[in-house]
């Protein structure tokens, strides 16, 4: 059997390290031993598919999950899932979750003294279309305090989970908002060494995506690892 064609690997500085003492929770959870390099096999170049609807009907409007409308600033977030060669990733599962407009998650362990919103769970998922595009309607998430250091606040963010075509392409990331002053103090955002790689996580305000009298538009593309080029015999 001929060898499978693997996927590109991350480059130094473009992904966070496991251990970053500025983010205290990494200290006891970061692997201490070096990773063992694994050349991609059939196991890593295959992965779960969701295009047949196995994950259930798309849940793309987070403002219509309750009896009434959630409180907060309505927004649209839309973008494309691409690979690093710029090719769209069609028919893949995108999941997102976030705090409500007051900065509180629908989670029993979130003890932030801010109100829950009975009309907002903050979770959704969608299968990208044939052009790799996705779109959600939601509420701008609030910033919230965390106990990493005294008076620490997470920058406003939305969590995104994406599969892509293979076990090797899966990523979970966070989307940030342009101009948020909290980003410069956020050690999770700053765990990514390279500025250009950090900037990939900042969405852009898109007036074309905004809908008059209704919602602000933010654009956020997610780039997955690409396929190694087929050897061409040069």
């Amino acid at each position, binding site marked *: *059997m001929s060898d499978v064609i693997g996927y590109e690997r991350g480059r130094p500085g473009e992904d966070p390290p496991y251990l970053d003492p500025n983010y205290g929770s990494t200290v006891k*959870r*970061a692997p201490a031993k070096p990773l063992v390099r694994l050349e991609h096999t059939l196991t890593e170049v295959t992965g*779960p598919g969701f295009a047949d609807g196995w994950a259930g009907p798309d849940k793309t409007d987070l403002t219509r999950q309750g009896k009434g409308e959630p409180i907060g600033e309505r927004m649209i977030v839309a973008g494309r899932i691409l690979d690093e060669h710029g090719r769209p990733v069609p028919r893949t599962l995108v999941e*997102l979750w976030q705090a409500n407009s007051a900065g509180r998650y629908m989670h029993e362990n979130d003890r932030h003294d801010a109100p829950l919103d009975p009309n907002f769970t903050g979770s959704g998922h969608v299968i990208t279309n044939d052009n790799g595009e996705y779109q959600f309607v939601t509420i701008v998430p609030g910033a919230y305090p965390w106990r990493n250091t005294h008076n620490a606040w997470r920058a406003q963010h939305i969590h995104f989970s994406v599969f892509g075509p293979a076990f090797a392409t*899966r990523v979970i*990331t966070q989307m940030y908002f342009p101009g948020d002053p909290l980003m410069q103090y956020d050690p999770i*955002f700053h*765990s990514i060494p390279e500025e250009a790689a950090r900037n990939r996580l900042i969405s852009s305000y898109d007036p074309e995506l905004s809908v008059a009298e209704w919602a602000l538009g933010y654009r956020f593309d997610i*780039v997955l690892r690409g396929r190694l080029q087929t050897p061409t015999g040069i």
Partner: protein
Amino acid sequence: MRLIPTASQTAGPFFKFGLDRPEWADLTGGGKAAGEKIRIEGHVFDGDHAPVPDAFLEIWQANAAGKYAHAEDRQEKSLDPHFRGFGRCSTDKEGRYHFLTIRPGAVPGRGNTLQAPHIAVRVFARGLLKQVMTRLYFPEEPLNKSDPVLGSIEDAARRQTLIGSADGADGAAKIYRFDIVLQGQGETVFFDV
């Protein structure tokens, strides 16, 4: 032109309401999948050997015949309509997880090698800025000796962290225990995938 891939960020502690799908811990389609039913269970531990209650695992594996439910697996083996090969499970307050699945068949490796039956495992958690990836192999599996990935780990004690241990049965399903130690003594081998 190359685009910079989107960097990983931690899943944080509050992913459950977004990602939790308890039904995805059963890969057998309610028992309909072909093959030997097995239960995989274990804990996730941190560097103090304390349980990690805010992690989740995902697994990916071939079916009983050794074929992946994916277009790029072109082996002439049968797909099982009741088996997708993907599972997800969050850890509970004691750091425990479990999957009900089937014993995977052997799949090809690189070159003309054969890989021992295995399950690819990834873990996300608060405090993990990026996922860790490992593999579960089965004890008393003759193909383990010639498995190229196991063979790439020189230290026998480290290699052993990838091998589940038989631990009784849950009804007809054999139980394999597979603890994941993120750091320190007994640290699980994690792969650069």
